[in-house]
């Protein structure tokens, strides 16, 4: 029956798309548990017969990993790096603080823009241009400026940079949430003697708190995943997870596939988790609220 | 003569729910038939099956004698007008009309001829270059109808095309639509929940209820001789008056008693003993300002002035009754005398909702 066949073919196409979407992630996780001699074997090992946690040990417990390697022949005597704990700690601190500031500043600004039409119709757009410029174009002067202000390679400097570059997202996303909330309720509250800010905080904010939470998670993801600023604005005092991934890579000595994959798998897990929590709002975020779902 | 459209025992099940059940209906060429019923009665499903968007669970759709049940919508020679008109908003009116013709691969000259003819008939000349999105409701309706008709379909299906319009526009468009249909001698299946639309335009009306056709007939029939209490209730404005009545059978005869009348007899086989309902249309209630021997007294509670006529809401015993009179006939608080002819009484069986008429009616 051709109709049945058509449906079958369409479902097959969906399955193929799912496989393609999942495959690189599968490979990342699969490699992360491969012992050293299977990382770059030919033919490649798809699923290891000898899965090991050694790569994860190298990431988190370099000393223990080394002791393990010494006992086990056939295990990699990798170059010793520091533990990745610091990277996770730093990334968590920076991402959380930057997210908080971005959301706080963004909410205030969005409130002002929506309720008072502050700055006229083009004002909000001005923030978007921040997102349009390639960060690499301003990275050189930021390095110069941050050096002057003693902000290079500090938490505060990173937080400042991340806050600024996520503000367009938070302002535009929160703006779209506030616009959807009914203004009449605020008006009613003000008739009952609340100030406008109070009315906003007590009436509108609870209505849009789900949206703001989604925005916060979204911005956290952006911060957590950021690489270029981390690469350029830090020099060892601050280490982010994306940098730590690069720490297992080098132009001269090749890549530690398994270790990198382990680091990649762990660093990407929270992002995927948060991503699914805010799945409904992800598109809105990535399109500055232009596409709602 | 082959019917333009024939539905043969059409049924549709969605899981446990039977949306349409064994529905049969035939439309003669040039006939205007309405499917009338409240929302959820299965009329839209029927339409979807006829148009080809829903495959029927059982039964067949036959157009011009050809079984079209498995044919995709585009090849059924059926024109379709949607409730929201579905005018292609990104295309010009001309392109809207062209759309179906291009699909039919007609020669260019023929397309042009048809479009111009249709534009003239529906007075679309000034709209041809406008984008679909820029039209108002009545313009859209005309474009939607023109778009369907220009393909010269065997059958035109209209799905509640007036429900988005305001009342005054509706009245005007009803006439317009009927006129076009007559001019073109176009067979139409018209789906609506509005009895006025159905009554005013249809050659025949099929009243639907819970997936079945309750009654098929001319507007006349349906109005004066409703087959069931449901039909009687659906048709008519203001709605039919319902009064309780009692049936007492003796031998082959059955006597009905109600506050409105005395001594009407029915065939005893038609109605069992006991409490039933009696329906009488407000237009059929005769009202007199003076007492008459065969009239009953009632008092006017309030008056609804419709301009051309008044509706009196009468207090009559323990029940309320509406009656239509010329304007200024009576005022609130006055007493009037009323009567209903036995042949205009519709006795509605409590058990199966069937309407039974008085003997000799």
């Amino acid at each position, binding site marked *: 029956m051709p109709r049945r066949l058509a449906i079958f073919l369409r479902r097959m196409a969906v399955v193929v798309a799912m496989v393609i979407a999942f495959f690189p992630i599968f490979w990342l996780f699969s490699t992360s548990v491969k012992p050293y001699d299977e990382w770059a074997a030919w033919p490649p090992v798809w699923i290891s017969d000898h899965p090991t946690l050694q790569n994860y040990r190298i990431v988190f417990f370099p000393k223990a990993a080394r002791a393990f390697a010494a006992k086990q022949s056939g295990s990699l005597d990798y170059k010793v790096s520091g533990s990745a704990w610091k990277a996770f700690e730093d990334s968590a601190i920076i991402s959380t603080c930057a997210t908080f500031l971005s959301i706080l500043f963004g909410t205030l600004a969005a409130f002002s823009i929506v309720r008072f039409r502050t700055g006229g119709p083009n004002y909000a757009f001005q923030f978007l241009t921040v997102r349009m410029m390639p960060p690499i174009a301003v990275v050189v002067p930021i*390095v110069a400026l941050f*050096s002057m202000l003693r902000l290079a390679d500090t938490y505060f400097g990173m937080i400042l940079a991340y806050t600024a570059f996520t503000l367009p997202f938070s302002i535009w996303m929160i703006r779209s949430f506030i616009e959807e909330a009914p203004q009449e309720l605020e008006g009613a509250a003000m008739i009952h003697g609340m100030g406008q800010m109070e009315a906003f905080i007590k009436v509108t904010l609870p209505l849009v708190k789900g949206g703001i939470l989604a925005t916060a998670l979204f911005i956290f993801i952006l911060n957590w995943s950021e690489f270029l600023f981390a690469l350029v604005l830090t*020099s060892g*005092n601050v280490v982010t997870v994306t940098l730590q991934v690069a*720490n297992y890579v080098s*132009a001269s000595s090749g890549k530690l596939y398994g270790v990198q994959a382990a680091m990649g798998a762990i660093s990407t897990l929270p992002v995927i988790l948060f991503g699914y929590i805010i799945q409904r709002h992800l598109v809105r975020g990535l399109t500055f609220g232009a596409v709602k779902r | 003569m082959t019917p333009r459209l024939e539905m043969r025992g059409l049924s549709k099940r969605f899981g446990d729910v039977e949306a349409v059940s064994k529905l049969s209906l035939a439309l003669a060429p040039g006939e205007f038939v309405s499917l009338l019923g409240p929302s959820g009665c299965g009329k839209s499903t029927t339409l979807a099956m006829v148009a080809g968007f829903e495959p029927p669970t059982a039964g067949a759709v036959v157009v011009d004698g050809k079984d079209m049940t498995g044919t995709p919508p585009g090849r059924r020679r059926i024109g379709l007008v949607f409730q929201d008109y579905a005018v292609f908003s990104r295309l010009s009116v001309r392109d809207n009309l062209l759309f179906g013709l291009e699909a039919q691969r007609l020669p260019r000259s023929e397309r042009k001829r048809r479009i111009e003819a249709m534009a003239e008939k529906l007075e679309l000349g000034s709209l041809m270059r406008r984008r679909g999105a820029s039209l108002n409701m009545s313009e859209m309706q005309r474009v939607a109808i023109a778009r369907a008709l220009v393909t010269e379909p065997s059958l035109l299906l209209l799905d509640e095309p007036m429900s988005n319009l305001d009342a005054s526009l509706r009245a005007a468009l009803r006439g317009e639509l009927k006129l076009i249909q007559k001019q073109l001698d176009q067979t139409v299946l018209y789906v609506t929940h509005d009895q006025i639309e159905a009554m005013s335009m249809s050659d025949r009306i099929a009243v639907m209820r819970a997936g079945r056709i309750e009654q098929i007939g001319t507007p006349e029939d349906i109005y004066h001789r409703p087959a069931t209490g449901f039909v009687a209730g659906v048709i008519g404005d203001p709605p039919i008056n319902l009064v309780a009545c009692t049936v007492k059978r003796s031998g082959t005869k059955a006597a009905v008693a109600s506050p409105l009348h005395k001594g009407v007899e029915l065939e005893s086989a038609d109605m069992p003993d006991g409490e039933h309902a009696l329906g009488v249309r407000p237009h059929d209630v005769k009202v007199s300002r003076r007492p008459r021997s065969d009239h009953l007294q009632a008092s006017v509670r309030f008056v609804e002035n419709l301009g051309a006529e008044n509706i009196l809401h009468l207090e009559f015993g323990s029940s309320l009754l509406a009656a239509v009179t010329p304007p200024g006939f009576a005022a609130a608080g006055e007493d009037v005398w009323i009567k209903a002819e036995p042949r205009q009484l519709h006795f509605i069986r409590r058990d199966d909702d069937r309407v039974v008429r008085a003997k000799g009616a």
Partner: protein
Amino acid sequence: MKRLFNGIGPSRRDVLKAGATGLAGFAMSPLLGRGAHAEQWALKNIHETAAAKAKELAGSRNVSLKIMQPSGSLGNVKPVGDLWTKATGIPVHYLEVPLGEINQKVLLEAVSKSGSFDLALPATFGIPDLAESGILVNLDKYAQKYEPTDYQKDVLYTIGDYYKGSLYGYQTDGDTYLMFYNKDWLDNADEQKGFSDKHGYALKVPDTWEQLDAMMEWFHRPDKGMYGGALFRTQYFIAWEWWGRFHAKGFYPLADDLTPQINNDAGIAALEELIAASKFLYPGARTNGLFENFEAFGKGDKFADIGWGGTQKFLNSDKSKIKGRLAFGDMPGGMVNGELLRTPYFNWGWNYVVSSVSPDPEIAYLFSLFACSPVMSTIAVRDPGGYFDPIRGIHYKDPQIQKTYTEEFLVAHKHSMINSIPDFYLKGQGEYFDELRVNIAAADAGTKTAKAALDDCAASWERITRRMGKRSQSVQWHFLKANYPAGIRDRLK
């Protein structure tokens, strides 16, 4: 001790002096007066004296040292740091940055002057840029004060420690580029006969690039799973091989007036030979970095490999199928005027340098003196998982190090170290070399002819030199040239 490493020519220090004094008009010779004060500081226990001095300098102050090091070098740095802390009470903190990024990070500190580190371990070739940026402390004054006269005599390669005649940091890593061969294949009598029948000379560790190329071609039988070589062809590595091939033809990369000579006939021939040799490499050569490279050579199905001490650490481990079946050699040379010219090449290395914004540069210097002392550097080099390869003569006698590398290898390594030509230690090294890399990779990929690639590169070099300041570059170039190993210096044009 001097005898031990002094295989050829005068000692390194003598060479440096010669280079410096040979340049009349440039006052850059504090070397001569060096060590006057430090007479009483003996080399043997310099680590103790340096630590004691540091402790004294720190006094009751709360001093700590921050070291910025490339990722993966903790195994070399931390054991020494721990001993330092034990000896001085001065704690050491480690900042790890991606290996490829460390020079950039040190340089950016010149801009930010944030004092984020006291010591760093940049790659040696970046010292000219870093010195010019002002972020490095010119160590001459401290060396004069503390460095024992014979401190560097035992160090096999020190050119990279100096820029324009001044000391900027101590070398920690013997990163000379040398060759590994499949000994079984070399020793196979049938192969030997077949090869010498065809080429008229014996199949043995090759002396020249020409011989190496011939041998790789000879052994390249992909259908039998045998490959000629595991030389690098990724962009980052490819220029080094050409650098060796080019020097082996008897030329400096720059003329005395800084005109590039890289695009002369020798340069073009060297590049064409390199491209021709690409045919005899194993399939992964074009993508593989160091790690994948020695892993591949460890399979034992390839004839020749190029690499550093780290390569040997792997090849000599249980993971390598070729363990114990290896022959070693300098990077091949060439015949110049009928005589063999070898130009081994020191192309990486890490130097301890002191930050000019460190609050305690003197203590930081003392740490580098401590860490590079014979005893401490031996401990650092011992780490089997680190980067550091033997650099001092004394390292070659350490049983643990001998076990890691094999004595046979160490002989070759030492020979190569002593004769190594320096990398291109000029300001803008990154730019010069990247230009070279891009062009050579393009020529190897076939998108440019060898001549066009080198002409383009030479043109870029001229522009870079002009931008960097010709006078300044000229000073360093002449200093560098004067410090090429003596036996080679005289034969290069």
